[in-house]
């Protein structure tokens, strides 16, 4: 249990975000109570960024040391990251339907997120196309490093440079943080940390079960 303190902390932070996220006084804005989505919807993107960064680090480690475990973990990171990214897109579409009257508004934020997800889909397809294990690991590690850079550019940089966006919080620094006052930030930052740790927890479970699966498959080959 001593290595699991951060998992309990993650749940406590998310409990705090659920309880105070609904109760905290929010500033008046043109999107009303849906401003509270920022505690949950934006958390999905930070969870995705967190695990994609873990994947990026593991791809770098693989290229420098050649340990297949790093390849396995990078692959699982992309799978978990795509999952949280899809949750981010779906929750965003629900919100957009009620705020903008359409689920997809061709906004730079939305298109950037979609492009980054497609880049990671290509990573998964690339992997499935290379049968040789060593080669697959090396090629996909190089690709994953580029993919992470593209993710940062499309989700972190381009939306901020755009003047033509509907997305809340734009035009004053971070695309997601703009409409919040100090009270909301007391909920928002713990929520982000909670979501980031939760996604790392999911990644850990996926990685461990994949290692077990590989072991079984190796046994079956040797029978």
């Amino acid at each position, binding site marked *: 249990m001593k290595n*699991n303190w951060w998992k309990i902390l993650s749940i406590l932070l998310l*409990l705090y975000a*659920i309880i105070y996220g609904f109760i905290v006084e929010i500033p008046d804005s043109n999107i009303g109570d849906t401003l509270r989505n920022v505690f949950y919807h934006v958390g999905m993107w930070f969870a995705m960024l967190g695990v994609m960064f873990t994947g990026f680090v593991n791809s770098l480690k693989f290229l420098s040391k050649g340990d297949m475990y790093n390849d396995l973990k990078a692959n699982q990171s992309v799978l978990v990251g795509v999952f949280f990214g899809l949750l981010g897109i779906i929750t965003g579409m629900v919100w957009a339907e009620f705020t903008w009257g359409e689920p997809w508004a061709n906004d730079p934020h939305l298109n950037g997120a979609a492009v980054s997800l497609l880049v990671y889909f290509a990573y998964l397809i690339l992997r499935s196309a290379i049968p040789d294990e060593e080669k697959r690991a090396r090629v996909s590690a190089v690709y994953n490093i580029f993919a992470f850079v593209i993710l940062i550019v499309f989700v972190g940089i381009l939306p901020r440079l755009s003047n033509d966006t509907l997305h809340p919080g734009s035009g004053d620094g971070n695309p997601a943080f703009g409409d919040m006052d100090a009270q909301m930030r007391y909920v928002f930052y713990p929520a982000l940390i909670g979501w980031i740790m939760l996604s790392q*927890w999911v990644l850990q479970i996926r990685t461990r079960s994949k290692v077990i699966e590989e072991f079984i498959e190796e046994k079956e080959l040797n029978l």
Partner: protein
Amino acid sequence: MEDQYKIYVVVAVLSIILIGIAAYMFAIERKLTKLEARIDDSNN
């Protein structure tokens, strides 16, 4: 119960769901730990 406090019911429901999912994830991890122990045994 006054209407303005009914949001707390939703908060309670969400909290129970979150705690439930967390407990479930810990249970899954315990299963994984057992499987890993079996793999270690078969390696020795």
